[in-house]
């Protein structure tokens, strides 16, 4: 690791997926701590992109996907940003503008036949600049008994991802939930309204920058800060 906190790329890995930096040990600063732990800097590195061969049935699946994309005149390199194989799960990072075509291909192609999209989940990487919001779609193929994950990113400044409700109607409520909690706008959704929070709620509560309330408890003059401002191990 270099002094700036940016890690050296190990051999055999094309690039590191740094999504944030962890500083200190207790989420506090300026406390006069002289232990040295306050000066800790460690990057948060997600599993790096994987190069072929992926191993197991992943290669067969990737071949099918590449062939199916070619059939549809979609260049693989511009549709799939990267592929990550980690912990026996394969993740395809698909560019937002192609997600509808990609989902239709997953559903219709006989060699893929992912009958089910098990919803969509948002993840907010506050420091992953330009791609803060991730929408994660788990897919299940009952025919081939396979699971894959498709991940689409969008910047906070322009949080738009096309909706795949037209292809997987079951994603209706899931996309509403992800809009509700993360503010990802699924373009083309038939009725993108809040689902869990009240209709007049302000903000999207599961974003990492959403301020938490905390309880104004006082005990001998002390106040309890909100959980995100509380001292904690990190």
């Amino acid at each position: 690791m270099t002094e700036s906190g940016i890690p050296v790329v190990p051999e055999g890995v094309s690039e590191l997926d740094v999504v944030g930096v962890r500083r200190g040990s207790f989420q506090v600063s300026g406390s006069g701590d002289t232990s040295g732990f306050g000066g800790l800097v460690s990057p948060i590195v997600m599993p790096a992109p994987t190069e072929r061969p992926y191993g197991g049935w992943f290669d067969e699946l990737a071949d099918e996907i590449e062939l199916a994309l070619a059939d549809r005149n979609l260049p693989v390199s511009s549709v799939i940003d990267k592929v990550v194989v980690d912990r026996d799960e394969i993740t395809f990072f698909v560019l937002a503008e192609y997600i509808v075509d990609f989902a239709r291909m997953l559903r219709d192609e006989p060699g893929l036949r992912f009958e089910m999209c098990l919803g969509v989940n948002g993840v907010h990487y506050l420091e992953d600049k330009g791609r803060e919001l991730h929408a994660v779609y788990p897919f299940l193929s009952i025919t081939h008994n396979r699971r894959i994950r498709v991940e689409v990113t969008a910047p906070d400044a322009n949080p738009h991802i096309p909706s795949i409700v037209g292809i997987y109607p079951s994603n209706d409520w899931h996309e509403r939930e992800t809009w509700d909690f993360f503010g990802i706008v699924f373009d083309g959704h038939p009725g993108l309204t809040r689902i869990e929070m009240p209709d007049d709620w302000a903000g999207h509560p599961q974003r990492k920058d959403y301020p938490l309330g905390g309880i104004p408890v006082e005990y001998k003059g002390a106040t309890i800060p909100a959980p995100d401002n509380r001292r904690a191990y990190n």
Partner: protein
Amino acid sequence: MSDVTYSSAADPGEDVYADSYETFDGTVYNLAGGDWDSIAAAPEGEKERIVVNMGPQHPSTHGVLRLVLELDGETVTDARCGIGYLHTGIEKNMEYRTWVQGVTFVTRMDYLTPFFNEAAYVLAVEKLLGISQNIPERANVIRVLMMELNRISSHLVALATGGMELGALTAMTFGFRERELVLDLFEMVTGLRMNSAFFRPGGVAQDLPSDGEKAIRDTLPLLRKRMKDTADLLIDNAIWMGRTVDVGYLDLQGCMALGMTGPVLRSAGLPHDLRKSQPYCGYEAYEFDVPTQTSCDAYGRFLIRIAEMHESLNIVEQCLDRLTPGPVMVEDKKIAWPAQLSIGSDGQGNSTEHIKHIMSESMESLIHHFKLVTEGFTVPAGQAYVAVESPRGELGAHVVSSGGTRPYRVHFRDPSFNNLQATAAMSEGSMVADVIAAVASIDPVMGGVDR
């Protein structure tokens, strides 16, 4: 809301409880009951639509669900669900707790299937930790044992509340009585009837009590006999069949489009069960059938639940036969909870042996205990999606770690949340009373839907 003008309640002759307002679609009258006379003078020639707000209320134990029904006489022309009344921010809360504490939250989501919630979460955490293969055999058997008992108790409630909603009150008293037998076993094993927080990353919190195996074995014949009584009560019951046969119809095509899993999917004839297709916790070693029906209706789902309870009883028996002495937590002391609980004279407490060890024998053990309990363990960065077959369908846990001592993001794909979307497809065009049967056959639990 510029298209809505509320009439002032102070106007002479206005009903203060049931006012009316103008919209683009015409006049909308709010009715609070007993005041039909006040809209007797509704304008002629306009198309009349009646929208009934069923709920938000607590229909037996499903939780707080709101159904907005548009009616044409007794026929439902449009059905929409309103959810969110039980949202408690469990997923967000977990981001501020350690990995082990997360179990305490997830067990409270779908409160009828606490062990399945825990299983999905701990399996995902174990996958992230890379210790899935190191879980002791005994811990896996205990997990399967608890999950299958839980499947029985959950299906019994589905039966009981479904029966109550359709007026079969004996089914309700039977169902809850039998469920109590199972909950007694939960209490004996985990200390709690519900919300046990019993599964932990790496194993289970506690071994079975010394008399646990015998108590479970002794309960099974009674459970089997009484479940047969409940089934006999309803299976050929003309009223029950009249209320459920061909009601809540959803064929395989509809099920696939709406992402249905669990008994609803199996009632359309597809024997899809994650315990068979993608086994976890050693399910591949158990012998059981996946019951299916082809009637696609509420009655078929009822028959499937009855059959699944019997299969679960068989699995529980196999679990008891497979129980061999051994550890119930991974060996890795950096993950395993340091203390064992034991029942002291005051009813509960930590093991006195462990307290003696850390307080008077080994300072390093004390430090280790303190660090693991306050800070917790770290989980390597990455993400995992693990799904288990809950009584309602595929319960998936998507867990993201940023390498810290707390989850970065946890999301649950709750089967009730997804399956409730089928309410419209199942009940539009049917009678109002059939909506109740259709929703009961989905068996949604709003604690899981809203999380």
